[in-house]
């Protein structure tokens, strides 16, 4: 091979200028398209008038009919939310079109052939999709404010909140839409998927309206924080998912079940192994053993290795759950008579089960079924939430246990004995199984943001799924079954022996 040259010299000023050129071209293109300009103009300048008319009408009709003088004042921030949100929704259309539209018009390849990095392309396109609708929203809100009577204008804090919420929603919509645009092969497909972005945002506007009506401005700051976190996740996901290979390599959006099955098998199958011996040299009747030794002594450790980050995250979140349980225990301390551990009998056990119908029945199938349902739910929620909800789902019982342990201690019992009798016998099996399965569920969602190196998202997710299936069936289910048996047959006996009368 010939001599390889020096690495490309990075120049920050050129790097920024290239993004600017891309951004400016896109903006100029939008400004020449009347199909984009007209709605933006209408929604920016005409919509506030419509909103002003509606609030005026409501004011007069309510006042005349019901004497409800303060209605307009309460409604004004809601109208501001709408005045900001409606022009911003245009950003969705622009962002959805941004990559896949170029791909359809076949103008994408020359752009991909330029010396711009994936990040530069992503940033230039995203900022271009964002800028115009944000400007429109700002102008719309400002315009609406100018046509309002001074006494009817919301205070600076509410106005700032509404502006930031509008920007937050725009960012989430654009970053989500850019991901959709870079992963689909036609504008039609991208538009179909847009409802997954628009509907939650419209629901969020509704929720914000209710909160504003109730005067819960503090809650709005939490929503803003949520939008910020969601946006960081989506941008990171977008940057990881965006690559030239995917954009050019994929020609059709096809649900190819055969390919999916082939990929599933590729990642699901593990090597047979028997302590370094070739499985073929084992007696035919004993070869099946190498499948199980391969799974438990080779494959599961590998899965653990691949899941180490997720495991660390779950363990940290469990520490967080203990902290939350402790904090809640301090805030909501129970009177000691609510914890009658010294009065535990078989009868009280039965009564407790009857009084708490949401707890699973105290049978092996009842407990096992409940745990399996929870972990399956964790996998589904984890997939839809970049892994976050899977970890939160496991945090809940741990926080409850921490809460109860604190209460038990304050009621004058030894918390260690409480843990050793009520939790430890089955928990020693159940907790590792739950942590492992939850970590695998976290990976199902986290793969979208950070697919393993050398893999695209589809491959990474399939590997995470097969790891989940193997870990769930091979480790979690047997451990949980054992734990359920212990919880039914051993734990109550132990509790009665220690605390019972």
């Amino acid at each position, binding site marked *: *091979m*010939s*001599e*390889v*040259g020096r*690495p*490309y010299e990075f120049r920050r000023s*050129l790097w920024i*200028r*290239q993004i600017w*050129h*891309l951004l400016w*071209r896109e903006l*100029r*293109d939008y400004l*020449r*398209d009347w199909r984009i300009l007209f709605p933006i103009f209408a929604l920016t300048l005409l919509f506030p008038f419509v909103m002003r008319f509606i609030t005026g009408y409501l004011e007069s009709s309510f006042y005349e009919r019901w004497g409800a003088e303060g209605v307009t004042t309460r409604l004004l921030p809601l109208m501001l939310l709408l005045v900001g949100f409606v022009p911003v929704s245009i950003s969705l259309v622009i962002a959805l079109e941004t990559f896949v539209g170029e791909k359809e*018009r*076949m*103008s*994408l*390849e*020359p752009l*991909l*052939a*330029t*010396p*711009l*990095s994936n990040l530069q392309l992503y940033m230039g396109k995203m900022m271009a999709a964002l800028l115009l609708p944000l400007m429109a929203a700002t102008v719309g809100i400002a315009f609406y404010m100018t046509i309002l009577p001074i006494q009817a204008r919301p205070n600076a804090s509410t106005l700032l909140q509404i502006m930031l919420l509008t920007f937050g929603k725009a960012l989430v919509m654009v970053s989500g839409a850019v991901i959709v645009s870079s992963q689909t092969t036609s504008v039609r497909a991208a538009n179909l998927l847009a409802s997954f972005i628009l509907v939650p945002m419209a629901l969020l506007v509704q929720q914000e309206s209710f909160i504003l009506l109730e005067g819960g401005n503090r809650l709005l700051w939490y929503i803003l924080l949520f939008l910020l976190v969601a946006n960081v996740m989506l941008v990171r996901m977008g940057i990881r998912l965006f690559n*030239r*290979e995917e954009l*050019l*390599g994929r020609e059709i959006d096809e649900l190819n079940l055969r*390919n999916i099955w*082939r990929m599933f098998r590729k990642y699901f199958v593990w090597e047979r192994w028997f302590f370094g011996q070739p499985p073929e040299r084992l007696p035919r009747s004993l070869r099946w053993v190498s499948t199980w030794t391969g799974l438990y002594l080779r494959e599961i450790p590998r899965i653990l290795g691949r899941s180490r980050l997720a495991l660390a995250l779950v363990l940290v979140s469990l520490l967080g759950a203990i902290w939350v349980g402790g904090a809640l225990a301090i805030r909501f301390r129970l009177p000691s008579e609510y914890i009658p551990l010294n009065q535990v009998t078989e009868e009280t056990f039965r009564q407790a089960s009857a009084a708490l119908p949401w707890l699973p029945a105290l049978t092996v199938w009842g407990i096992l079924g409940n745990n399996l349902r929870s972990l399956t739910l964790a996998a589904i929620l984890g997939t839809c939430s970049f892994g976050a909800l899977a970890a939160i789902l496991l945090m809940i019982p741990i926080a409850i246990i921490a809460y109860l342990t604190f209460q038990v201690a304050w009621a004058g019992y030894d918390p260690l004995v409480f843990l050793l009798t009520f939790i430890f016998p089955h928990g020693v099996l159940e907790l590792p199984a739950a942590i492992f399965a939850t970590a695998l569920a976290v990976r199902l969602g986290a793969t979208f943001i950070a697919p393993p190196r050398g893999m695209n998202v589809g491959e990474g997710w399939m590997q995470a799924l097969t790891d989940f299936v193997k870990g769930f069936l091979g480790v979690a289910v047997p451990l949980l079954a054992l734990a359920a048996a212990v919880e039914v047959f051993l734990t109550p006996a132990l509790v009665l022996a220690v605390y019972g009368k």
Partner: protein
Amino acid sequence: MIQTERLTKRFNGFTAVDGVNLTVRPGRILALLGPNGAGKTTTVRMLAAILMPTEGRAVVAGYDTRQDPIAVRQRVGLLTEQPGLYLRMYGGEYLEFFGRLYGLDLETCQRRAREWLDRFAMPEAWGRRIGEYSKGMRQKLALVRALLHDPPVLLLDEPTSAMDPHSAKLVRDAILSLRDERRTILVCTHNLMEAEVVADEIAIIRKGQIVALGTPAELKQQLLGPPLMELRLATSTDGARPVVARWAPVVEEGPNWIRYRADAPEKVNPAIVRALAEANIPVVMLSEVPRSLEAVYLRVVES
């Protein structure tokens, strides 16, 4: 310089390019021929560092496409299969945009763009909306886009498709004029005449593999056998046949012409002409029977 080593690309189990080894030295033009779906565009996209190879590697303009894709893209001019233009933009504006993305200053960008537009006989394109261009103009504008940053490696995918004969000739002449000691050019084309005119070397790709590689003459020799010579006489061939047969195998014969294969025409032909002169057989003409690249191509792709 373009150099590939076992360059391979797979998409979901489908092998588009399979272990391609190519070397194109500076100052040379290689034409990559092959049927639709043979892997030409995928190869070009890998050389332009748009797609990464699944296996093997490519070094383009001194940079590894996997390790330094940005450096490669900075040094490659790519004419894509489809012009892929922004139709709402004006020609000049479009070229300025791409020139700036390649790091050119505005003045250089405008000067070069205007020079190329003049050369392609479309100076008016600067101030016209691209949506108003003819197909040929669009193709030429895309070619100017690829040439704007004066790249040492040019990858041209179907450079004259959709062009009228005059425009196609302008572009072919431009490609030939671009050949210099420091520039490497790879042309993908279905136009075999064009390939023969512009290329120093031909590579035929089929099912992702290079199945024939060499100069047009080498390929003809290799795939169609030694050159076929035609000897035309002023008399009948009666006396001439045994004379010719002494030097080369006779393939066909007419009333006053003979065709024979010559492994080494530079030796055989003078000897035959001398022998015929000594035998007082008047020769009207001796020439090679033209063999087209198309015959070579069809032989390869149909085999």
